[in-house]
């Protein structure tokens, strides 16, 4: 496997996805005494190009490591970031790759990637129960962390009306309800 520079990786994304790439940037920072560079990549893609983008990452590295999917409630849409790392096992050459995709709340669905990356199932189950993003085609639909008696349609990470209502929050002794 040939290691490519971050610039080349971004070019390869643009070649593979065309206008599916919304923006791409490289973050760099010098570390400690020898000033070796910490580098990470941030690539934002359209929802329609999302599956192709993950497939492209699987071409860059046979088994990309998917650390986690983070999600933010941005009001009208939910932002998902798939935190990958590629080129692990090479001294100081590993790259963090954040694949960003925004999903509108009117159609809160994202295709599963478990067929490409088997280990994605936990984190997909988590965004499903915590953020209310429907993962289409997920092999295991059950909740991961929330108890079975947790009400349907309440998503703890949401900042809108679907977030946990005030009466669900326990007020500590000596504190007042916000």
């Amino acid at each position, binding site marked *: 496997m040939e290691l490519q520079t971050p610039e080349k990786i971004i070019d390869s994304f643009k070649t593979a996805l065309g206008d599916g790439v919304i923006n791409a940037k490289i973050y760099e920072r010098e570390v400690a*005494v020898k000033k070796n560079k910490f580098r990470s990549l941030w690539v934002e893609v359209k929802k329609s190009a999302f599956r192709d983008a993950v497939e492209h990452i699987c071409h860059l590295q046979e088994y990309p490591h998917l650390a*986690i999917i983070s999600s933010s409630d941005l009001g009208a849409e939910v932002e998902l*970031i798939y935190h990958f790392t590629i080129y692990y*096992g090479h001294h100081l050459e590993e790259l*963090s790759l954040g694949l960003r995709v925004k999903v509108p709340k009117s159609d809160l669905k994202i295709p599963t990637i478990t067929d490409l990356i088997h280990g994605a*199932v*936990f984190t997909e189950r988590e965004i499903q129960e915590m953020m209310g993003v429907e993962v289409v085609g997920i092999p295991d639909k059950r909740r*991961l962390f*929330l108890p079975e008696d947790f009400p349907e349609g309440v998503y703890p990470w949401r900042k809108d009306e679907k977030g946990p209502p005030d009466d669900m929050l326990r007020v500590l002794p000596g504190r007042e309800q916000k």
Partner: protein
Amino acid sequence: MIQEETKKATYTIPVGPIHPALKEPIRLALTVDGEEIVDVDIFAGQVHRGIEWLGMNRNNPIQTMYLAERICGICNICHPFAYALAVEQAAGITPPPRADYIRTIAAEMERIHSHLLWAGVAAHEIGFDTIFYLAWRVREEIMDLIEYVTGNRVTKAIFQIGGVRRDITEEQFPRIRQSLDYYKSLFDQLKKVFLDDKTIQMRTRNVGILKTEDALKLLTCGPSGRASGVPKDVRQDQPYAAYADLNIKAMTPDMVTGTVVGDVYDRIIVRLLEVKQSIEIIEQCLEEMPPGPILAQPKTAVLLKALTQAEGEGVGRAEAPRGEVIHYVRLEAGQSTLATWKVRAPTYVNLMSVPTILKGMQIADVPIAFASLDPCMSCTNRMVITDRVLGKKSIMSYAEMRHLSLKKTEKLRR
């Protein structure tokens, strides 16, 4: 499906609705055919404390540092470490180089104590309590050193955004070196006890195998992944803190035996090698530590104001004793809490390999095979055992299962 069968009998503890950091109790549902395990299902979330929610709704970013420290009792260096890296990236703060070195020393001390703790637990799981006592006796030395350097034995509170709280001075070096020498003098003995002992070999060789390909597919990280031949180690792969200046190599079992089996025995090898590696890293850091300040912004009020006004996002990755810890932080200007905080502890991904590891094994092997991943949970409290032939469901307590494990060791010894 089998899952449906076991679901009704399982025991659910409804704890807080918010965020999981996957610590402490967990439940596995094993489906067995006689003694053999044919299927495993995992139920997590029993100690769901909503920590991320607190970081996003209650605490300010500085308070959240101390909350991050309390995600785990053992990994209370690596969580603040990853959190600090993420916030520093989001807010554009650069810690001084001396702080990088002190952070590295603290993280390696944590690795030594965690691996020794694990070694004792692993011996206990197979009923070899002499080694359990020995390993934990030996561990006391590093606990004393941690207290000497950080001021605290368990929750060290040494990390701050933009640096560390406490310096390591020249006068402290001899005391630190004394502890490191103690471990160096013991290493050969530890290696002999854990790798040459016949009983340990019988109970761990070819038990709980995770093949390289499975480890890659299931995203297994940390010592468990390395024992399966995946040379992934954040300290080696990504430049962060003083690791960027050092030449670190991921430890794999073939360095000792020449092959990778991916069983429990290999996981012992990797952790032993890493204890030695940590000692070398601390020694190197002491020698090369640059002079200078230890904190980028010593005034808390100024720092808090800067963090409240900052806009940006960052990812912090650190190698915990159990594998990669990652924190994602998003700051929005004018917001007093974090806009988004996502934490992933290594056990989160390592748990996915549990079904693969346990399938085809005997119930008596479950404690050691499960413990060999060093899952960050107090214990596997209860397991639901379903006998497929008899269709009988029963809850086997941890004590009963451990008893089975002890009996197996005794039988093998005869």
